[in-house]
Every structure is written in C-alpha cells, then in structure tokens.
C-alpha cells in the first residue's frame, strides 16, 4: 500500500517541477498566475495525502485554509491585471 503513495507523490513532485518551470519563465503575467494556481492545487492534494501518511488530521485543515488563500490570491491578481483594482 505504501508504494502507491510513493508513486503518487513522485507524479505530483514532477508535476510541481513542471509547473514551477512555467512559473519562472512564463512570458506574461497570466502564465505565471496559472502556474501559481496549479501549484496551489497540487500542494493541497499533496498535503492531504501526506496527512494520511503521517496520520495527522490537522493537515486537512491546513490544506483547506491554503486552498482558500490561493483562491483569494488568484482572484485579486486577476482583478489587478484587469485594471479594476
């Protein structure tokens, strides 16, 4: 059973590396924001999975708060790029 977690975590780690490369070299601000959104979502999923692996229930709460903060951040950045802020 533990090997499934290792395989899933390595998939997510490679995905975070790809997304972070796009976050660094993205040509416009929108590309960076999309990459940041993807990084946040992968981070939430990884936090829940690691919380199960370590048997810590508090990680799910941390993941929920992190999802809320990432959502608000992306909305604020989008409003700023639109010019309405």
């Amino acid at each position: 059973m533990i090997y499934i977690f290792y395989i899933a975590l390595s998939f997510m780690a490679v995905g975070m590396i790809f997304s972070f490369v796009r976050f660094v070299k993205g040509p416009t601000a929108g590309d960076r924001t999309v990459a940041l959104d993807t990084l946040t979502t992968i981070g939430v999923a990884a936090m829940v999975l690691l919380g199960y692996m370590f048997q810590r229930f508090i990680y799910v709460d941390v993941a929920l708060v992190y999802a809320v903060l990432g959502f608000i951040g992306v909305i604020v950045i989008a409003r700023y790029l639109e010019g309405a802020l």
Partner: protein
Amino acid sequence: MSIMEIIGGILILIGSIFLFLGALGIYRMPDVYNRLQAGTKATTLGAMSLILGVGFLETSWMMKALILIIFIAYSNPISSHALARAMYKRGKYPLIYNEDKASYDAYREVVEPKKEEGRL
C-alpha cells in the same frame, strides 16, 4: 487489504496521474488560454479524485474531504474564468483570432466597441 483500501488506492493513482498531466499541459501548451484549460480542468479532477481516495482510505475524514472537494469544485473554475477575462481585457487575444473572421470572437466587440466604430 479490504475493498475500501483498493478503491482508495485506485482513486489516488488516477488523481496523481491527472495532476501530473495538468502540470505537463501547463509546461507544454503554447498560449495562456490553452494553459488555462489544461491546468484547470485536469487539476480539478485530479485533486478531487485524490482527496476522495484519501476519504475512502480513512473513513472518519470523509466529511472534511467532501468539504474540501466542494470548495475546489467551485473555486477552481471561478479563478480560471476571472483570469481568462482579465487576460482578454488586457489585450492578449486567443491564437485563433484573425481580422477576417471577426464573427468568431463575439466578446471582442463587447470589450472594444470604440475600435469597431473607428473601423467603420
């Protein structure tokens, strides 16, 4: 190994593969809108599937996992929609647009009415 653990493991594998494919789409796609589509839809499905798999593995976490799934299911499309609208209003148009086929892009006439009048 019970039936719940098998279902949870399969859901976790599916979710991680979808997360990886979404990030690969972020890296490979040519445009902001293509990146939005790849990075939002696949990532939403992957995160929902993985969190549901963890909820199947540990049944007492199921309620909070469902809350997290519902939040991701409504927050991710909203943020991608706001970002696409912002990039459009900023002046970065999709790759499909060209000047001859202006009827493809009905939203552009809403965003830029002055340029349409000036062209007439």
